[in-house]
């Protein structure tokens, strides 16, 4: 069979359908779209918000996140870039969504309000009742209701299905007791969606129910969990006889695991944050360009170049997987690889930034001291380094991701 000469294949290909279908560039349409998005961000992103993102903050104030979401929303539902037109989104195709999120990252715009926009919204579109869609989707679209996610529990970290927080049926309500932990932004949020145990016989994945809960409900208290560098991002949420109407249940009772798996699948693409690392790397390169030779300049410049090269290879890997055979739908457990390597490089960039700052990188300055000046961005280098240690732990620790790859890709 190998005796089909290359000539016959290639002559045919070149003359009739064009030879190298591979193309590392965007089509003119997408390129024009990219420029439109970029220009919009650059002209509409408030500078005080941009500066906070450029400081590598993940703990933006609620007000700033909502303000930016509403600016995007005004532009035609851009705050919910993955939503179809029927629900008020822009109805973009995958390439457009990819380019849009990349431009947000490269231009230091905040991350999307992911729990409502990226997770609950699509899950409701898939599994919610018509009433739930009518009631909950529009406020997410407009940025009027801030959602958070209640999945993890104190003794069920990576082993999500081992959760114990109970929801007991009582007439038209569930009564919820227990607690959720690592709840990002619960102190900003209005509502929490999450998983609660409604039955404890059988497999642990069975008997889990997906509920939407108003955080103003009586019986809910929050305990802030500070990161070890001082940032308040996550919380423990306690439920003490909290009444939740049955109408706030998504899908069927006991079947919540199915919906959660769908929802978590939506998160997979985001956590590698390759484009955000590109922006961080730009800041690092500016910093190390100024370090004198006798102060280790060559060392830091080499190190920055090395991580840039690694990031470049990872970015192309992401694109090969998204725009290769089968398109983005073909991306399976390989996403775990992007998450592992992406967070490693993200951490490496922030580590180098801190190290290049020398002893000054160790000063513990409050987050809000003089936001906006370039000098201050770098002065957060130590805090950022420490804070971002979480990225290899959250969204399924990198060890769990490697287990997934070993099983699902390697077949071990």
């Amino acid at each position, binding site marked *: 069979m190998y005796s089909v000469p290359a000539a016959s294949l290639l002559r045919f290909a070149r003359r009739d359908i064009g030879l*190298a*279908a*591979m193309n590392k560039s965007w089509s003119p349409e997408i390129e024009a779209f990219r420029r439109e998005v970029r220009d919009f961000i650059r002209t509409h992103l408030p500078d005080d918000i941009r500066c906070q993102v450029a400081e590598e903050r993940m703990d933006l104030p609620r007000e700033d996140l909502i303000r930016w979401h509403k600016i995007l929303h005004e532009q035609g539902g851009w705050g919910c870039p993955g939503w179809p037109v029927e629900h008020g989104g822009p109805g973009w195709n995958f390439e457009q969504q990819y380019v849009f999120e990349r431009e947000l990252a490269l231009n230091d715009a905040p991350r999307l309000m992911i729990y409502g926009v990226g997770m609950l919204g699509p899950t409701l579109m898939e599994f919610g009742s018509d009433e739930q869609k009518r009631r909950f989707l529009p406020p997410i679209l407009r940025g009027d209701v801030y959602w958070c996610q209640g999945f993890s529990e104190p003794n069920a970290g990576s082993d999500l299905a081992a959760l114990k927080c109970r929801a007991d049926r009582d007439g038209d309500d569930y009564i919820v007791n227990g607690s959720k932990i690592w709840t990002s932004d619960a102190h900003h949020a209005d509502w929490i969606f999450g998983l609660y145990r409604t039955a404890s016989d059988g497999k642990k994945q069975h008997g889990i129910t997906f509920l939407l809960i108003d955080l103003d409900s009586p019986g809910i208290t929050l305990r802030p969990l500070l990161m070890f560098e001082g940032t308040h991002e996550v919380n423990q949420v306690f439920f003490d006889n909290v009444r939740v109407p049955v109408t706030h249940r998504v899908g069927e009772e006991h079947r919540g695991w199915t919906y959660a798996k769908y929802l978590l699948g939506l998160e997979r693409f985001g956590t590698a944050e390759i484009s955000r690392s590109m922006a961080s790397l730009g800041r690092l390169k500016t910093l190390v360009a100024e370090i004198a030779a006798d102060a280790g300049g060559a060392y830091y410049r*080499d190190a920055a170049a090395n991580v840039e*090269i690694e990031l470049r290879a990872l970015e192309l890997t992401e694109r090969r997987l998204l725009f290769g055979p089968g398109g983005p739908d073909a991306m399976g457990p390989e996403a775990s690889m992007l998450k592992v390597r992406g967070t490693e490089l993200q951490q490496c960039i922030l580590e180098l930034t801190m190290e290049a700052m020398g002893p000054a990188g160790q000063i513990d300055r409050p987050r809000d001291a003089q936001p906006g000046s370039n000098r201050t961005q770098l002065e957060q280098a130590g805090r950022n380094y420490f804070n971002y240690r979480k990225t290899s732990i959250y969204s399924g620790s990198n060890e769990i991701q490697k287990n997934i790859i070993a099983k699902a890709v390697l077949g071990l």
Partner: protein
Amino acid sequence: MNFQFSDEQTLIRDSISRFLADEYAFDRRLTLTADGLGYSDVHWQQFAELGWLALPFAEQYGGLDATPVETMIIMEQFGRGLMVSPYLSTIVFAGQLLANAGSEEQCETILPDVITGDRLLACAYAEPQSRRALSGVSTRAERDGDIFVINGDKSLAIYAECAHTLIVSARTSGVDHDAHGVSLFLVDTPTAGISMTHHRTHDGSRASDITLHNVTVSADKLIGELDNGLPALDFAIDVATAAVCAEASGAMWAVYEQTLAYLKTREQFGQTLGSLQALQHRLVDVYTSCELAQSAALDATLHLGADPAARRRAVSAAKVTIANHGKTVGQEGVQLHGGVGMTMELPIGHYLKRLTAINAAFGDANYHLRRYQNP
């Protein structure tokens, strides 16, 4: 943006893959690389018949006008199959250097024979003292009327032993390390004044140290402009570097697959090695390295037509990526195989040797890390 192979490219890939499986089984490779010129004449003729020698060349010389992607595909497969042959030296490196920089007359004289497999080429550009810098050329070519007289030493020219024609870089003006003043010449071999010491390298390839003593070539053997040979040479080296990156990527995938297969079957203490989490995670790292290396090779390949600075950055980035990951993958392949991985009989150690040779070829990681920053 599209990273799918066309159907035709997939067919070419499969065709090479089958050829290697049928004609280049590992024990056959061991025999071929052990003796003589290190490759098979019969295979070379098959390459010609299959059109592989014609791929990158223009139709007017009998070529197929293929793109760098097709070269990448063939080199990836050669990497997987551990093929050693003069393909890199003749077709990818010297051949494309001539095709890009040579006169139409030179191309007409030489390329058709190359494509039919009747003429082999090699490029002699490195010198014992040059180590890395392309401009480190001390070999001199003095003009004497209609001829040039070349004197100097060239080191480790790959597959020069079997080449009928060499492309030799020599200084026609300036001093060592001047970028200007280097010219390229076609030198047929054997020719009076050329002597070679041939070496077998650990990966089973061949390379020769060459001494040129009053070697005379006529002025029409000058390739391109006098004194301005470096840009063409630089480009050709990038083409060859991208090709060995693709080869490395293929070799890495083979290591991954063979190691995975080994871990799945090999039992110790009553369980397969593949069930041990520590080894699983290490093989996940190997897998990740393979994906990154494949991307880097593709990155370099797709930038061969870009402006020189972008091309150099992409090629150097790829070479660094391959160095960082290829070394580790090769070492992990041997380590995870344990004792059998150390033996001559198993391909796994030979992949490590080839990956190691690729790291040393065309500038090591440190050289390319610098070049990436100052392309």
